[in-house]
């Protein structure tokens, strides 16, 4: 996770855009957000915004609502603080949106109108604008051209530069028929050769369109959780409106005349303005963190859902393991020692160029085997599905072979009339039990030993799964391997459960059974046959290299096509929710100190005993009210970095996390304003005398 929290190194041009530029843009945008249509979307800040106009009117005419002792300057001061309170909130949101907006702008440039060759019939085509293409049209693109829209490749083979979308500069080879790499994305550039593809998206619904839509925070839909919190904050604000509005008649009964500006100051200080101002920024920044991590979330809801995930379903190959098997051990059969096996293995693999073959050579050399010049000139024998063996016909006439245990045993039986030793089966099982795939090794009729090929775990996976477990997230590995191998890998990686000999449809079965037990499930996938499972899962992360159906079924797309990122996405989701909760707690806890600042200030002249509540010993009533209000305003920009970055997140149990956050943001929220208000009062009061 740490990488995501720190902000992964960005790829695209946008991410290099300077912070200073972003801030400058945010300042401009923040003034536009004073528009009532924007303000009304945030009920808490809307009340502050309205209050600002009331105090502004009072600045021009302090006696607007009746007799009062306060001066226009005081009202003006309150108005200014309210203005800054709203402006800080606008700025927080504008800053959060800035990065996405800049990215959207650069994506839009990619989308500048291009022409396309639409195929009319088998050998004629017409040139049309990209916007005229519809689903099902066939289009031909050639070297150097921008691919006009999304599609599935029908013919041709070409390398494509997808950096505009993924930020990855290395070209990708595209060809039809493969589950992976058989789709093209509008806005990418074809570097060599040509392709014919069938358009898979209507204008406005292409991947690029969706991406632009998503990275632009402005049109972002609020998530249900965010709406719920907004409602709660609005109701709290409404309660305080009632409290403050009724305070005037209550005080009037005691012959105390409360100034409207002071009442408004009390209202704004008590309302949860801190979280109200930062709520939107927190949500946008959360999605932005995912985007910067090159994961495109289809909605904010998807990011939040990731935080909720309780079960991760992960493919073994490519996600948990490197995906290419490597030789890890030689097991000699009776009559041979390990160096014999290493030597024959070297001979059998000398001409083998597959990664597995190279790994056998590397292991053999590491075990001290040397290439014997007497073998030369040898003849490499390639693997076929029929023989299930490969090897080398050596110059001295001997035949070195390695392959599936049963196939090699049959080979020595049929070719050399030797029966495989009884120990072969035991040795092969020994290897399999360790999670490796056994290859039998023979030279002529002599079975020398067994080579163990293991799928190597990606580094750090064990720790990551341990983190997941401490968060209460169960990991399930899905693999086509036999149960013995699967069990070993599962144990090595530290996943909680595994499904061996899995067929594609098993994934959806696993998801359903987990969901039936009340768990929220996340999975990754790329193939068309993953699409139903991606749709069924609560969080489906599709690889960008995957097929169109997979990408459409998923609610997140990883532009880097790295399935392990699912784990990071979970952390990003959690961090988003924690930040929201922590700042809400902080904001509400602040009220205690504000009460102690403002209530004595409002009543200590009329009810002298009440000054005993002035525990902060604030200098004057005016200074107390203004200090609390100023604190209420400046805490917003102080917390903007935290809102955008997210609070620190460490994988640990829920109880631990709660204890830490309650201590930090709850207790902190109680204490900090006492100090802050006192400090502001000390600085401010000399000027008010």
């Amino acid at each position: 996770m740490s990488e995501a929290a720190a902000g992964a190194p960005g790829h695209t041009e946008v991410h290099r855009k300077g912070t200073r530029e972003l801030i400058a843009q945010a300042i401009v945008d923040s003034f536009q957000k004073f528009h009532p249509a924007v303000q009304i979307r945030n009920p808490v800040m809307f009340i502050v915004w309205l209050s600002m106009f009331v105090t502004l009117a009072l600045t021009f005419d302090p006696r607007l609502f009746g007799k009062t002792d306060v001066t226009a300057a005081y009202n003006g001061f309150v108005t200014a603080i309210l203005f800054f309170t709203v402006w800080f909130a606008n700025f927080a949101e504008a800053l959060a949106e800035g990065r996405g907006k800049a990215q959207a702008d650069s994506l839009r440039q990619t989308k500048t109108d291009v022409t396309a060759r639409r195929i009319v019939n088998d050998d004629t085509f017409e040139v049309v604008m990209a916007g005229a293409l519809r689903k099902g049209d066939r289009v031909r693109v050639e070297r150097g051209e921008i691919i006009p829209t999304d599609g599935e490749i029908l013919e041709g083979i070409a390398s494509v530069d997808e950096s505009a979308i993924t930020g990855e500069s290395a070209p990708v080879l595209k060809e039809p028929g493969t589950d992976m790499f058989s789709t093209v994305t509008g806005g990418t550039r074809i570097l060599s050769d040509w392709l014919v593809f069938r358009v898979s998206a209507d204008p406005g619904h292409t991947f690029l369109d969706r991406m632009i839509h998503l990275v632009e925070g402005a049109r972002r839909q609020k998530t249900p959780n965010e709406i719920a919190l907004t409602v709660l904050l609005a109701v709290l604000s409404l309660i305080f409106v009632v409290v403050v509005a009724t305070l005037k008649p209550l005080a009037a009964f005691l012959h105390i005349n409360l100034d409207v500006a002071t009442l408004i100051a009390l209202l704004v200080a008590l309302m949860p303005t801190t979280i109200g101002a930062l709520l939107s920024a927190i949500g946008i920044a959360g999605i932005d963190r995912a985007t910067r991590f090159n994961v495109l979330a289809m909605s904010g809801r998807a990011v939040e859902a990731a935080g909720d995930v309780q079960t991760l379903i992960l493919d073994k190959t490519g996600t948990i393991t490197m995906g290419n098997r490597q030789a890890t051990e030689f097991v000699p059969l009776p009559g041979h020692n390990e160096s014999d096996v290493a030597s024959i293995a070297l001979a059998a693999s000398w001409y083998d160029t597959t990664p597995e073959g190279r790994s056998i050579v590397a292991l053999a050399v590491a075990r001290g085997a040397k290439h014997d010049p007497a073998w030369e000139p040898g003849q490499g024998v390639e693997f076929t599905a029929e023989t299930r063996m490969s090897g080398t016909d050596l110059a001295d006439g001997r035949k070195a072979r390695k392959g599936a245990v049963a196939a090699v045993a049959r080979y020595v039986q049929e070719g050399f009339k030797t029966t495989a030793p009884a120990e072969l089966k035991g040795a092969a099982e020994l290897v399999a039990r360790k999670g490796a795939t056994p290859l039998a090794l023979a030279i002529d009729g002599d079975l020398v030993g067994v080579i163990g090929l293991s799928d190597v775990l990606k580094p750090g996976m064990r720790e990551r799964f341990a983190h997941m477990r401490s968060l209460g997230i169960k990991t399930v590995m899905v693999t086509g391997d036999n149960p013995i191998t699967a069990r070993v890998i599962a144990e090595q990686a530290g996943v909680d459960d595994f499904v061996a000999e899995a067929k594609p449809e098993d994934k959806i079965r696993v998801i359903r059974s987990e969901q039936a037990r009340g768990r929220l499930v996340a999975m990754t996938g790329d193939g068309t046959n993953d699409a139903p499972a991606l749709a069924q899962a609560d969080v489906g992360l599709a690889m960008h290299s995957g097929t169109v159906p997979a990408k459409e079924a998923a609610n997140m797309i990883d532009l880097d096509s790295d399935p392990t990122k699912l784990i990071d996405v979970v952390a990003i989701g959690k961090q988003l929710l924690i930040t929201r909760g922590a700042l809400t707690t902080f904001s509400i806890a602040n009220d205690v100190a504000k009460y102690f600042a403002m209530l004595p200030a409002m009543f200590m002249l009329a009810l002298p005993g009440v000054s005993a509540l002035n525990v902060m010993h604030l200098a004057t009533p005016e200074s107390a009210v203004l200090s609390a209000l100023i604190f209420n305003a400046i805490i917003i920009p102080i917390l903007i970095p935290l809102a955008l970055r997210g609070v620190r997140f460490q994988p640990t149990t829920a109880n631990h996390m709660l204890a830490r956050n309650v201590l930090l943001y709850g207790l902190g929220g109680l204490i900090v304003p006492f100090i802050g208000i006192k400090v502001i009062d000390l600085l401010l009061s000399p000027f008010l005398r």
Partner: protein
Amino acid sequence: MSPAAFWQIVLELLVAGAISVPFGHYLARVFQDQKTLLDPVLDPVDGLIYRLIGRDVVKQAMDWKGYAAGMLLTNLLMGLLIYGILSWQGHLPWNPLHFPDVNPLLAFNTAASFITNTNWQNYGGESTLSLFSQMAAITFPMFTSAATGVVVAIAFFRALGPARDKGRNLGNFYRDFVRVLTRVFLLPCLFITPILVWTGSPETLTGMVTAHLIQGGTQHIPMGPVADLEVIKHLGTNGGGFFNANSAHPFENPTPLSNLIETLLMMVTPMALVITFGRMVGNRKLARVMYGVMASMLVVAMFVAVGAEQRGTPLLAHAGLMQHAGGGQMGGNMVGKEVRFGITQSAIFDTVSTAFTTGSVNSALDSYTPLGGMVSLVQMMLNCVFGGKGVGTLNFLMYGLFAVFIAGLMVGRTPEFLGKKIEKREIVLASLALLVHPLIILIPTAWSLVSPYGVSSLGNSGSHGLSEVLYAFTSAAANNGSAFAGLNGNTPWYNVSLGLVILFGRYASIIFMLAIAGSLAAKPPVQETIGTLKTDTALFGGFWFATIIVVGALTFLPGLVLGPIAEYFALYAHHTLSGVGR
């Protein structure tokens, strides 16, 4: 505080706690249709009632709307019945003192008050109501309003329960209603009423006895069926007295023993319902946490109230009065307290009465010290220091939903409570429920204080006068019924405004909470993992408590500062009466 006072608090709480646990388990058995010892006796009785209601009606499963509709319909019909009885009592039997019909506004206020378990009384019982009215319009709704409170809480508990096959079903209102009446409220009344009679409480249809005094002359002493009313008045946390003096009257509360019985009766049902909750939702540890938080608040309230009253006032000290307990003297602030109860039993009784939203009083709250009076006020503002049976637990759970929502986010999950996701709908509804209470307290209080018809009822000016009005509307909104006294409520303005506040305070929050229950019941449960927020821990209990204080109580701080807090500081700042009310 004297050791005697300390031990009285501790022992009474321990006894109430000890009764509440088995009682809570018994309640759970009743509502989960498990066997109880009383079944052989009560099943035929219930069967008879079911036949009257209609067996099909009692059998059908109800979703939250059905449950709420059943509750509202039953309450409306009973409310109209009460209104009718009061308005026609001059034409009805058992009216030995020939009281006239109750005027419409007072009848409305009284009907609203008693059907909602509030028991706010703008009338003096012995000088207004016939014996028939006392029985049919006062004692009768004391049973049914208590039953209503319990069953809505039970419906809510069911929604959070672990059974997965019931879907949206919250149970059957009518069946629950009957079972709670026969199995929980009627039976104890049969057994405890004779004990109160033994302590000196009358139970008769004679309206009045005339005593010939030793010093000459005669005294007319009103009486009636008092003892049974006393039992359900406290067991059902109702609080409405037969007499105007309520439990300070020697017929309602004759001896320290009857005082102890009444205090314990008030506490057991709301306390037991927390235990019932734990058992019905399958998390007894959570119930223990809730019980602990509520009990802590109650203990603090008791110590503050008893301490404040025992400490007395600087005014009396100034007058040279001895205020320390000892030498056969109770010391402290004895103003408005009965000698047979003393400081401690008076303060405990009133603290319990406002915590459990009973509202009965055995002393005059108007004469309490500012802090002592404020304890009662704050408990009604919170309305969940155990609270009235059922609704108190619901209020506490409402704050729990907010605590879960915020704390849930802080552990990086969209919030869940007992395996149910707390989402937009629940928070919107809970927010509305939260909004009702301050709204219906503060707005009418402010209105009363600036209108001539509001102010003219006041017995005091200044902060104490403000406290009287604030107390009245808080008591009405919390469906407590406790009166600060000093305020003449029997005016058109207060009859109508308090009546409406009472109705809103009762039904708005119940309907919102039932709607939440309906929404939660329909949700598929989410499995708990170590990544799930644990609500059954001391840590979360503390957070829950903080939520109640910061969200619930701070709302009322400005009002409290102008009322009792100002009065408190004035008392200690000036040591003169002129400082109390200007």
